[in-house]
């Protein structure tokens, strides 16, 4: 069965990816540059993939290897590629000067959410599950909450959308530990969905940008299709 000497190594490395994953989720709340956010999202996806690989090594499951490969290829390569190609340069380089809340307050809120997530996860972890649940479930839950906060606080379209994508990443992060044997088809569908979502949002932000010259969703009053005057 398992090599008893190797297991604590892998588990603590998995915990490390969990810690760094949480850090990237915090970074997405606080970072001002759009490119920086995109880079953080890529790092987060790579961390998700490496967690999948580590859990695969722990469980000897080829299934999770496939999940990791799928994840790395769509989120770390395809999504940023689409973002960089499809979006206006001006959208990419813009800094978000005004946020809904200032950065320290947003970070403190994120922190409170993370602690709540840990408290909520305690009974769920006690209920049992696969290997790595004790790390992946609370971190994933915290990432989910913090991603939601990101989506709520951002005024620029791209970082806001990256917050939504981070929520998806986080639920995956919890999912690979809770249900390691999800049918592969579902995972392929989810990965493909993410890509389609990115494309759709790109088209949307382009349209918004052409209309009003900015992608500040905070400045939008209505979402009607009429011309804005």
């Amino acid at each position, binding site marked *: 069965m398992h090599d008893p000497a190797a297991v*604590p*190594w892998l*588990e*603590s*490395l998995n*915990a*490390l990816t*969990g*810690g*760094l994953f*949480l*850090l990237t989720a*915090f*970074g997405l709340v*606080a970072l001002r540059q759009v490119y920086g956010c995109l880079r953080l999202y890529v790092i987060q996806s790579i961390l998700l993939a490496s967690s999948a690989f580590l859990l695969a090594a722990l469980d000897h499951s080829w299934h999770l290897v496939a999940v990791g490969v799928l994840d790395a290829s769509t989120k770390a390569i395809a999504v940023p590629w689409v973002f960089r190609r499809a979006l206006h340069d001006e959208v990419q380089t813009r800094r978000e000067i005004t946020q809904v809340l200032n*950065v*320290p307050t947003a*970070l*403190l809120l*994120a*922190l409170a959410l*993370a*602690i709540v997530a*840990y*408290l909520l*996860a*305690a009974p769920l*972890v*006690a209920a049992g599950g696969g290997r790595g649940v*004790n*790390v992946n479930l*609370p971190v994933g839950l915290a990432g989910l909450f913090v991603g939601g906060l990101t989506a709520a606080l951002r005024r620029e379209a791209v970082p806001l959308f990256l917050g939504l994508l981070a929520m998806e990443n986080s639920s995956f992060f919890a999912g690979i530990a809770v249900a390691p044997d999800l049918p592969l088809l579902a995972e392929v569908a989810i990965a493909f969905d993410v890509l389609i979502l990115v494309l759709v949002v790109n088209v949307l932000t382009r349209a918004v940008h052409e209309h009003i010259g900015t992608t500040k969703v905070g400045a939008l009053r209505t979402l009607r299709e009429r011309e804005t005057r």
Partner: protein
Amino acid sequence: MAQRIWYNVLQMAVVLVFSPLMAGVLNRLKEIVQSKRGPSIFQPYRDLWKYFHKDEIVSRESSWIFRFTPYLVFVTPLFVTLLIPVLTDYPLFFAFMGDMLGGGFVLALGGFFATLAAVDTGNPYGPVGASRTRMVGFLAEPVFMIVFFTVSFVAGSTIPFIVQQRWVTPPSNFFEPSHILLLLAFLMLILAEGGRIPVDNPSGHFELAMIDESKSLEYSGRGMALMKWGGQMKLFVLSCIYLNVLVTPWGLAHDQALGSVLLAIPFTLLKVLAFVLVLVVIESSMAKLRLFRISEFLGAAFITSVAAMIMRLFAF
């Protein structure tokens, strides 16, 4: 017993002698990165020598605080040296005199008096720098608290010699998430406390932008030398704590023989050199933050340290 006292004194001598060298290497490497030649790495020694041989001018309006502060700034890092592992991995004579929190307080005492002395002279830029230092200081304080709390919680002790043992033995301890996150938080803390670049520009001499430098503006002669040397020792001591306790707890003397303790000196210097390289990369690739963005930088450090704490506290 007597041997342990001597080793403690040897530690102090190492800090005393090599801290200007660290500053010199740091400056030289930064200049090289900027495609300049830069001053010799021994320039800080020459500066100190020059200052010690110059006349000291003290304002008639200043009080005893101004005259007393350089000695305090000079002595406090040496006191902390007694408490931390610089060369040996077993506790020395004074190791149980104070823990990490005590060391932090002793360093803060020097900082506190430097602030008072800056206000004392009546130079308009002194109080500006002093109030900014306090701002950075009180933003860094919670990070310090959480870092120390988590470190002592993980290692079960606040004595640096005992904490250091924790990361050495099974390598899986070293890769604990809370440990790695603590490393990040502590690095940010050193950058803030040492007045390094994202927070303060140590080589900038523009009065309106100064934070750390402005506190020694009024000093000359011997007082200036002691302030400079004390600042260099503070950075050296902080990096020794960071390296020997948290990042690379290996390569310290393990037995009592004089030879192995002496052999630990080049190892420690090598680690400090590696740390200086990291500092050079950070200082050359980042810009100084605006004053009111410092709170965001230290906020990020706080988040990192608290993340380390909850990863550990709620470890199921």
